[in-house]
């Protein structure tokens, strides 16, 4: 169960997370004392106004950026003190990223894009092929393996990106507005896939979205306000955010 306080058994534990950017000689406090616990197999949606720090939070959870203060523990590993190469290795093992703009490499085919994370494993060529085919089959694109991203629709591209995110069987998925660039129908397909991954395969999915209909698919919706998270669909002062001023938008 998702909780905004500390839970020793949770898969992901975030404690007193601060992120401050320096811009033009001024400190921009984006995250302030953020706490979060996510159990395995949960599907969590993050909402919040533009500039509230949703992407910042996902980047920290995915080990793409380092917090100013606080700690992030995933499956018992504290990641905030890992060095660059170790962090890269950790990402390869534990995180599957899904981006708003899909971020497929345009010069590689769907197959080659999905295969990329497997190149960081010890799997043989034949094993990699099996895994890639399974992942592409799961997102319903078995017949598009040799297509280049430009030959696919947006929804298909995002499904390839999902296949790439899950192919190495990561500990959790981080999705930053995965449907932000898709039409309703494609968005629904992608959301169905993500919630299926959580419900059927027990994957932990953390998703940022602006779309309330997308958020409905998640088991829990958290709002980012004033640098911290509050539960539910309304924002209010009862959240456990800090009392200081919220991050500017």
């Amino acid at each position: 169960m998702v909780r905004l306080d500390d839970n020793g058994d949770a898969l992901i534990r975030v404690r007193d997370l601060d992120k401050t950017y320096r811009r033009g000689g001024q400190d921009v406090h984006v995250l302030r004392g953020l706490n979060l616990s996510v159990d395995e197999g949960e599907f969590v949606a993050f909402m919040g106004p533009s500039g509230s720090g949703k992407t910042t939070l996902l980047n920290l959870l995915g080990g793409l950026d380092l917090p100013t203060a606080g700690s992030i523990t995933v499956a018992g590993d504290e990641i905030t003190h890992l060095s660059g190469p170790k962090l890269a290795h950790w990402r390869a093992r534990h995180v599957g990223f899904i981006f708003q703009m899909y971020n497929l490499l345009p010069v590689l085919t769907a197959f080659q894009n999905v295969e990329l994370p497997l190149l960081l494993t010890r799997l043989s060529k034949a094993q990699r092929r099996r895994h890639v085919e399974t992942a592409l089959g799961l997102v319903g694109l078995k017949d598009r393996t040799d297509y280049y991203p430009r030959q696919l629709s947006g929804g298909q591209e995002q499904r390839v990106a999902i296949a790439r995110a899950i192919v190495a069987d990561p500990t959790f998925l981080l999705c930053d507005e995965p449907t932000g660039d898709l039409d309703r129908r494609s968005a629904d397909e992608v959301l169905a896939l993500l919630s299926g991954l959580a419900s059927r395969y027990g994957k932990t999915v953390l998703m940022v979205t602006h779309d309330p209909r997308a958020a409905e698919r998640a088991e829990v919706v958290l709002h980012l306000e004033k640098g911290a998270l509050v539960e539910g669909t309304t924002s209010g002062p009862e959240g456990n955010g800090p009392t200081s001023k919220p991050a500017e938008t």
Partner: protein
Amino acid sequence: MSPIPLIYNVRSVRARWRGNLVAVLGIAGVVAVFVAMLSMARGFQLTLVDSGSPSNAIVMRGGATTEMESVVTREQIQVIAGAPGVAHDEEGHPLVSGEVFVVAAFHHRASDSDALAPVRGVSEQALKVHRGVRIVSGRFLRPGLAELVAGKSASTMYSGFGLGDTPSFGGRTWRVVGIMDSGGSAFDSEVWADQPVLSQTYKRPEDLFSSVTVRLTSPAALGDFKRALASDPRLTVQADRETDYYAKQSRAVSTMIRVLGFLVASVMGIGAVFGAFNTMYSSVAARAREIATLRALGFGGASVVLSWMVEALFIALIGGLLGCIVVLPVNGLTTSTLNWQSFSQIAFAFRVTPDLLGKGLLFALVMGFVGGLLPALRAARMPVASALREL
């Protein structure tokens, strides 16, 4: 460290070919010039080296480095002819060719001005000693006549030296009675005359020669031959293997061409390196999101550096290959230059050999490496989170 697949670089290079063109053409140009200069030096060197035979020894006055500075008397030649190791013809005559070397100004067609040509006074023995020289048209000189045999390069390089022509120099008129071919060696650039006639014309004592070329019984006979000459009190001469003598002769000019080649290529190379640097740098900027994505997937900084270096080297290799293809037709092209040692014009052909092409490719890779290094490091240092925000 897991490498980012090569296919990513190959396809990216192809997809961005317009942007890569600057780097490719820059490197190709430098490689072409570099290889051309080296093949010029190589051609010059081989032309001279081919002139010598390992079975021949050239004897000159002690201390002389060129035939121009050397004097050998007829008596000395007779002593030399009796030394051990000297080969003889069927009639038992020693294969010894006393030769007089002078330089004369002829009209050089290519530059439309006078150039200095080597003129060699020889006897019939010359053809038996210089085995590589063949009369390809006309005939050889008759003793006592003002006749000439022109090397095939000399005959085309200078006006008035075709078969049957009657050029004038040294205050008399000569007649070209034969054309000789030595297979591209320095003799092709020479004009041969009867030694006594040439000596008279240039008012030299008939008994004084510039050098003696001796045919030895075998290449191994040189040691005994040299020792015999050195221990004879009547002689103050030195003997060198003919191939060594010509190799030494070629050194100054071929080294000069080579140094010039390296200088020109280095200066141009700096430009090409900047071209490569620019190309790679803008490529990194344009593909920031791709790099960040690869980093997000878990590829490390070292993998990114490697991948970008591979791409820079790949682009450089394409440039290098293009440069090599461009320079290939230069192979065999003949040109001439002043040989400082004999102070006369010598014709030679560019020789584009595989090892020179290899050097050109290596040079291309060095340029790619230097030009790609900073962009590759920048690609790896790029902060992932902010690169992902860029659309």
